[in-house]
């Protein structure tokens, strides 16, 4: 499993996509918002938590179709399916690699970007914490979506349509937790953690069923 994770990370970095593209996209999404709504600092600081979370979602979405697509096309996925590791284990490895190459950099990059949007000082801690806990959810849900759409040519748009509704609870709780600041965000954080743990524990099995149906 470690070798799959390492392989995926290497592929993501060396193909020139991975880190830099996701981060550049995140930066651009955050950057164009003031162009759209104006550079009013009060307004920006009010909408900053939601924007940073939505930016994180969209950046995460970008690299999802790469999780299984290439392996599917060149037959690696079939070889992996016959290996002694169960399919759910492969799904966990893929999702972990996806999180390391997107969720982690997004979480780190959100702090300077938060400054650009004039985020409240006390909100930085909650922004970092919710993203650190919430982005694994995004990766695991995304891996599930990628597993479902892997057999479909040009499945990118469909993937977004399937995955974004599944992101809704995490987004609501995450953005809400950041914008509440010191006003008792712990219960929201607990709920985000609960969703995250549930996704990590259960979604790999759903991924395995979807992959098996596609490989049939």
């Amino acid at each position: 499993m470690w070798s799959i994770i390492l392989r995926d990370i290497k592929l993501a970095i060396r193909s020139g996509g991975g880190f830099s593209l996701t981060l550049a996209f995140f930066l651009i999404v955050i950057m164009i918002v003031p162009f759209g709504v104006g550079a009013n600092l009060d307004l920006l600081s009010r909408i900053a938590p939601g924007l940073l979370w939505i930016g994180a979602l969209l950046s995460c979405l970008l690299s999802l179709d790469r999780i299984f697509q290439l392996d599917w096309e060149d037959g690696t996925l079939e070889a992996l399916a016959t290996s002694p590791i169960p399919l759910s284990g492969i799904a966990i490895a893929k999702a972990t690699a996806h999180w390391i190459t997107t969720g982690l950099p997004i979480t780190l990059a959100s702090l300077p970007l938060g400054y650009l949007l004039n985020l409240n000082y006390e909100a930085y801690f909650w922004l970092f914490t919710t993203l650190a806990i919430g982005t694994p959810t995004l990766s695991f849900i995304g891996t599930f979506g990628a597993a479902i759409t892997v057999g479909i040519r040009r499945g990118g748009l469909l993937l977004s349509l399937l995955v974004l509704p599944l992101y809704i609870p995490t987004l609501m709780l995450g953005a809400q937790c950041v914008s509440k600041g010191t006003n008792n965000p712990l219960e929201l954080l607990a709920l985000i953690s609960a969703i995250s743990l549930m996704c990590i524990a259960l979604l790999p099995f759903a991924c395995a069923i979807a992959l098996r149906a596609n490989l049939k």
Partner: protein
Amino acid sequence: MSLWEYANPAKFMALSARILPILAIASSCLLLIGLFWGFFLTPADYKQGSTVKIIFLHVPSALMAINAWLMMLIASLIWLVRRHHVSALAAKAAAPIGVTMTLIAIATGAIWGKPMWGTYWAWDPRLTSFMILLVFYFGYLALWEAIEDKDTAADLTSILCIVGSVFALLSRYAVNFWSQGLHQGASLSLDKEQHVDNAFYFPLLICIAGMVLLFITLVLIRTRTEIRSRRLLALRLRNN
């Protein structure tokens, strides 16, 4: 004699052909009686006036919007566990009906909301969760359309339906946290059914029963269509 006997498409077709006319007549009678009673024989509400009568369409369709998804969930589980094709086709058949029910619920709610709340749409927890339900239906339908192999499509939509149910439920309760920050209290979503007077209660029950039967009728008709189109496909493949 067990229920699983009707997983055989031929037996299902025979049985559904026999009970369809009865169901159709029963559901249209109940809906006609319920709606007539509700629209013309009930008094106007002292606060809401006659706008209250849209409840006779709104509540049954909203109920069926959720129950249609529930039925799809059960049918999907049966397909994944027992591999009965009729079950998968019934789930597929129910989805567009669920979409229609959701749209009716949203539309009637909006029509009622304009004079009562002063707005067609508000980001209230209930309204929002119906919007989310609609998006889940769309994703489910789009996935059916996108996959060519029928059995793979049935597998993948079933697993999507199961995972989607969990997340739809999560959204329903996450919405409560989210809208606290925007709304002052949930005064908009009063629980209508528990507060409704007996004068409205009985016609409402009849309307709900009619809507349930209408849903079953439509699902049966659409499932029969799906089975027939599947047979056509098989015939065409054999001839080529």
